[in-house]
């Protein structure tokens, strides 16, 4: 029979190879699904994975990959710190919304302004907004031991209501003929998060994501706090004996993830998205949770996972357009990809042994 044997430490070889294996398995299973739907499987797979990177219009789509992946990576990096310590922030979506509202609100409040300090101020406000929203579950957990999964999740719905209220009321564009939605930041240069170099997709948010990857890497590898995070995740009891103060760690992890989510929201709403509307959030906060795990909670892994996830979105749209695949098929395909990535992960942590069934 087959049995699994835990490796003393994850296999480097398999850690590198499993994602590739997962993608190949997904292509087979997904291709099968596309074939059942009556679409050419090979072409569909090529459209999703190949065309955005190397196809005819790659010069447009490759930069878009950064635009799509930027917020996912930024949020996922923050979440991964908490996840490593066993602190579950499921409500990054809410922190994303509040960050965008607070930061964007600062810009809208002083409209029109051409101060060069405005955008940095908005960035700070956005980060603080997300931080403050994440402090609600953090403080409730430290003060009353209230479950942070639940509180952070419920606060997403509260944030969505605030967002709708803002887009329809306080932040509504006074020149917008009564329609919902704020002024467009694209027409407000001092507050606009523009591409740093035209045509490469790189804006401040993407840059922030890369910085966050480096920052998280150093924190986890070289810093005492990173060690405490990892220790708490492995053994909360040992961590307390080792001098970790759990309450502080909760506040730090939720705070930093809230802040990064808030920043992502601000960069998104003042840049690619451009406007505060009744539903400008796009589920990045939830998708980022998946990205964090796909990247195995490792900063570099998250970077790659974010890009892969972005690729399936962009390629998925192309498949809809070119082959008439329904968007639900793309969703199911993404689900499969995640299943396989998570499933084959076992190979890096375990050895598979074949041996005969023992006679009992």
């Amino acid at each position, binding site marked *: 029979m087959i049995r699994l044997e835990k490796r003393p430490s994850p296999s480097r070889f398999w850690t590198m190879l499993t994602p590739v294996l997962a993608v190949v398995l997904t292509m087979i299973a997904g291709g099968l699904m596309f074939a059942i739907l009556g679409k050419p499987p090979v072409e569909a797979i090529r459209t999703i994975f190949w065309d955005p990177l190397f196809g*005819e*219009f790659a*010069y*447009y*789509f490759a930069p*878009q990959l950064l*635009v*799509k992946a930027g917020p996912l990576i930024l949020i996922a990096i923050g979440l991964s710190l908490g996840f490593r310590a066993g602190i579950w922030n499921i409500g990054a979506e809410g922190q994303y919304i509040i960050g965008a509202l607070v930061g964007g609100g600062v810009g809208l409040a002083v409209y029109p302004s051409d101060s060069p300090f405005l955008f940095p101020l908005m960035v700070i406000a956005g980060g603080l907004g997300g931080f403050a929203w994440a402090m609600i579950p953090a403080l409730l957990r430290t003060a009353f031991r209230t479950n942070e999964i639940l509180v952070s999740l419920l606060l997403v719905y509260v944030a969505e*209501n605030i967002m*709708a*209220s803002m887009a*329809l*009321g306080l932040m*509504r564009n006074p020149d917008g*003929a*009564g*329609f*919902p*939605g704020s002024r*467009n930041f*694209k027409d407000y240069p001092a507050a606009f998060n523009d591409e740093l170099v035209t*045509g490469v997709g790189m804006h401040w948010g993407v840059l922030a994501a890369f910085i966050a990857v480096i920052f998280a890497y150093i924190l986890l590898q070289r810093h005492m706090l990173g060690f405490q995070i990892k220790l708490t995740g492995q053994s909360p009891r040992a961590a307390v004996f080792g001098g970790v103060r759990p309450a502080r760690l909760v506040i730090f992890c939720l705070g930093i993830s809230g802040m990064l989510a808030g920043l992502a929201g601000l960069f*998104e709403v003042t840049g*690619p*998205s*451009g*406007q505060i*509307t*009744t*539903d*400008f959030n*796009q589920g990045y906060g939830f998708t980022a949770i998946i990205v964090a795990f796909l990247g195995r909670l490792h900063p570099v892994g998250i970077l790659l996972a974010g890009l892969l996830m972005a690729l399936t*979105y*962009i390629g998925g*749209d*192309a498949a*809809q*357009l*070119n082959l*008439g695949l*329904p*968007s*639900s098929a793309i969703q199911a395909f993404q689900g499969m990809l995640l299943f396989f990535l998570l499933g084959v992960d076992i190979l890096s942590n375990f050895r598979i042994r074949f041996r005969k069934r023992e006679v009992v």
Partner: protein
Amino acid sequence: MKLKTILTGAALAVGLAGAAFAGSHGKTKVGFVYVGPVGDGGWTFEHDQGRKAVEAAFGDKVETSYIENVPEGPDAERVMTQMALKGADLIFTTSFGYMDATINVAKKFPNVKFEHATGYKRADNVGTYSARFYEGRAVQGLIAGRMTKSNTIGYIASFPIPEVVRGINSAYLHAKKVNPDVDFKVVWVFTWFDPAKEADAAKVLIEQGADVILQHTDSTAPLAAAAEAGNVIGFGQASDMAEYADGPRVSSIIDNWAPYYVARTKAVMDGTWTSDDTWDGIGAGMVKIGKMTDKIPADVQAEALALEASIASGEYKPFTGPIKKQDGSDWLAEGETADDGTLAGMDFYVEGLTGDIPN
């Protein structure tokens, strides 16, 4: 192939401008960007019916494509760019929230024509179109006012935007005209589409005495709730919802985009397309009143048909004075009709409606 790649690559430098040439040969390519799934049975479903009508009308001469479930924001912009790069000649963007994205993409592709639904920003290659649903609401209001026995009419409203407010005002004015005792109860659900919430809202309104339910949300859930309650009637919204015709559905307002989509596609084919602002109603066939069922007495049917006809001919405008605003101030004097600007930005209730518009 190579040459095209080089050409389009060069086009990047001048803002992707030339890419559209790559596809403009033979077939006219028409793209549709949808905010919901084509299976929503309401808003997006009807736009997709319009797309199918384009295919049926021109056969081999057109090639249509669509992307559904496109969130408003950067995704929309990317999807439109994707369509334009693939050589679309005409792109319909079918949600208000696509407005700025449409304008941005249109700037990069001056040779592609864009049609944005329900917005107000236009450019040389961006036209806008919308339907005067409030004309249909007037007919609906009349039927509702005549049919109600409890004199309480429930109204499920989505978001407090001019489009929805216009509908409430129009329905109320025409219900009031035929039944001075009528009272409207409005519930805001803050969603276009959430069957469970819509069902709850309908049930609540029925429990509070409403025997006519009007809805400005897209699912059939309120009709199902009305069917369950028994002596309650309702109307199809966006689609005909004829599957409830043997039950509570007595009529409907149908979004009929097909004639417009066919006409605009034809204009692109003929090279006669120009940017304009279309706001059509019952007259042009963009808004249709679904078949009335026998539940409506013959005289009321006749009255409703007469109203529909007078709106269609342009002889009667649903917002004709004297009308006061909710706070009692004058809005339209005797015989005065509302101008399109005021209608487009309507953010107030007319006199007699209770409650506030949330903001």
